[in-house]
């Protein structure tokens, strides 16, 4: 290196200046990048290492390297397979229901009427409610067969008092989570509808197109990227649904509402089987990536443009 410096002095100085400048440019980025890498990415690497070991805190045996046995065992673990299915069913239902409910509300709120701002504010409020608080209150205040408002409504309707949580455990999780995330969908889809050029709608109206036609042929195509984005983001957060499950059902009855995140939690902090928990964690990571990366690719156009008006 020194000899090179000797023979091509000025050029290297320039190169070094460029190098220094490059790092000077990167400097503001580094703290954030290092922080995120250390706290969110490094754990995944360590988890991968743990997942290859038999390591139970309850047993007296020291951790032992067992290669992929935890993964192989996962394939024959009925509860694990159930957790995968539950994650799929609950995530899909919540994403679809949130987009539909949020979309309908957005369509209703995207019109001129008195008190529109108040209605919008009320309708988005469920999204801000602390999930633990929401689940805790819904458990007694809404879902309880004797004291809950839902039990009373079904009783008045003549269906009788339904014990929602024990009879329809998955549905209760889906309803409460949809309640919170449809408010989120509403926010994004309403923004999407408001960015629909009014001239187009007016032109369509002049042409005699009715409202339904305008909505289906012009508004829906315009909304498509917004719907995809909403679905991606809701899926991303709901895959890790935890508070509602922990509070309402504890993953039960008989693991009926245990999703992958909750199963990892049970394996790690109830069964203290860190090897298995790590393997399940790795699998849920792989599944989450397999699901969201293609979706991210679909919507990446929206991000690349640096935002939509």
């Amino acid at each position, binding site marked *: 290196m020194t000899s090179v410096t000797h023979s091509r002095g000025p050029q290297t100085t320039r190169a070094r200046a460029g190098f220094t400048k490059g790092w000077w440019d990167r400097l*503001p980025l580094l703290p954030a990048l290092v922080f995120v890498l250390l*706290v969110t990415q490094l754990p995944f690497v360590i988890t991968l290492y743990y997942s290859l070991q038999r390591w139970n805190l309850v047993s007296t045996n020291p951790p032992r390297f067992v290669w992929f046995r935890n993964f192989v065992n996962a394939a024959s673990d009925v509860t694990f397979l159930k957790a995968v299915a539950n994650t799929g069913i609950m995530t899909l239902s919540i994403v679809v229901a949130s987009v539909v409910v949020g979309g309908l509300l957005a369509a209703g709120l995207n019109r001129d009427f008195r008190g529109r701002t108040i209605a919008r504010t009320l309708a988005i409020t469920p999204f801000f409610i602390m999930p633990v608080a929401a689940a805790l209150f819904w458990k007694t205040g809404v879902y309880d067969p004797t004291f809950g408002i839902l039990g009373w409504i079904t009783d008045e309707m003549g269906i009788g008092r339904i014990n929602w949580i024990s009879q329809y455990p998955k549905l209760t999780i889906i309803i409460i989570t949809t309640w919170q995330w449809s408010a989120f969908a509403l926010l*994004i889809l309403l923004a999407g509808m408001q960015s629909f050029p009014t001239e187009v709608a007016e032109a369509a109206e002049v042409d005699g197109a009715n409202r339904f036609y305008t909505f289906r042929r012009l508004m829906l195509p315009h909304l498509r990227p917004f719907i995809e984005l909403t679905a991606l983001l809701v899926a*991303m957060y709901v895959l890790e649904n935890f508070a509602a499950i922990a*509070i309402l059902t504890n993953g039960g009855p008989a693991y009926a509402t245990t999703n992958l995140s909750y199963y990892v939690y049970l394996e790690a902090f109830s069964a203290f089987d860190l090897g298995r928990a790590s393997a399940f964690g790795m699998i849920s990571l792989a599944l989450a990536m397999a699901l969201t990366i293609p979706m991210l690719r679909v919507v990446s156009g929206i991000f690349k443009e640096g*935002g939509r008006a």
Partner: protein
Amino acid sequence: MNRRRASALDPLLTLLTWIGTLIMFLPIAWMILTSFKTEEDAVSYPPKLFFTPTLDHYRRIFENDFVSFATVSVLVTVVSTLIVILLAVPAAFALTVRPVPKWRDILFFFISTKMMPIAAGIVPIYLVARTFDLLNTSAVLIIVYTSMNLPLAIWMIRSFMVEIPRDVFDAVAVDGAGRVREMVQIIVPLIKPGLASTALLCAIFSWNEFFLAVNLTTTVSTLPVFLQKFLSFGKLYTAQVAAVATLINIPVVVAGWLAQKSLTRGLTFGAVK
């Protein structure tokens, strides 16, 4: 013709919209109402709409260790949000105003970290926290919440920086020393409202977070963990739970309402304005 038909339909659509809106808000209204009932009224059948309101439950909130949990919540939320903003502003600067090579890849790296389930990392996070004696401390929550919110904050702040007109930058010196000044004195004031709503959004996420809090802390913890303890009391404390839940949701809901305008942008990583 078309217009007349539309206007005949309008009151009906408005009515339906209001019904939908009220259904969304009903559980919250019911929670607030319950918080003013006595425990007997709260579990009466049929549910009581009219009752003699009481403030007992709000008074009783402060009797047990609510205050210590609330203090941790405030501390963790405020400190982690401050660190997030302090780290995110320079990072967004390096990805927008003076973009580093491959800035687009780095941006997508940040967003992809949000797609990875935190459950996959919880075992090492727990063990590392244990090694450094950080379990059951505010510090560990501040660290994990900062990393949880950083990607979102970088994307959101970047989307505000992108909107600053180019000639603002052309007007200032581009030498190394001027860069800090450029960031602090010129860019930050321009995006102040954006920073405020970014901070509000990060604060909401920290305030409400449960998974990391319940796994890494027990007694020195935040309000969601405090609330979870009511679970063992079952229906005995329905009204009390409603009062606590109402009180601790007030700051978040107010923050959400205040940030409404730029909320969409934050929640979509700046993709929708």
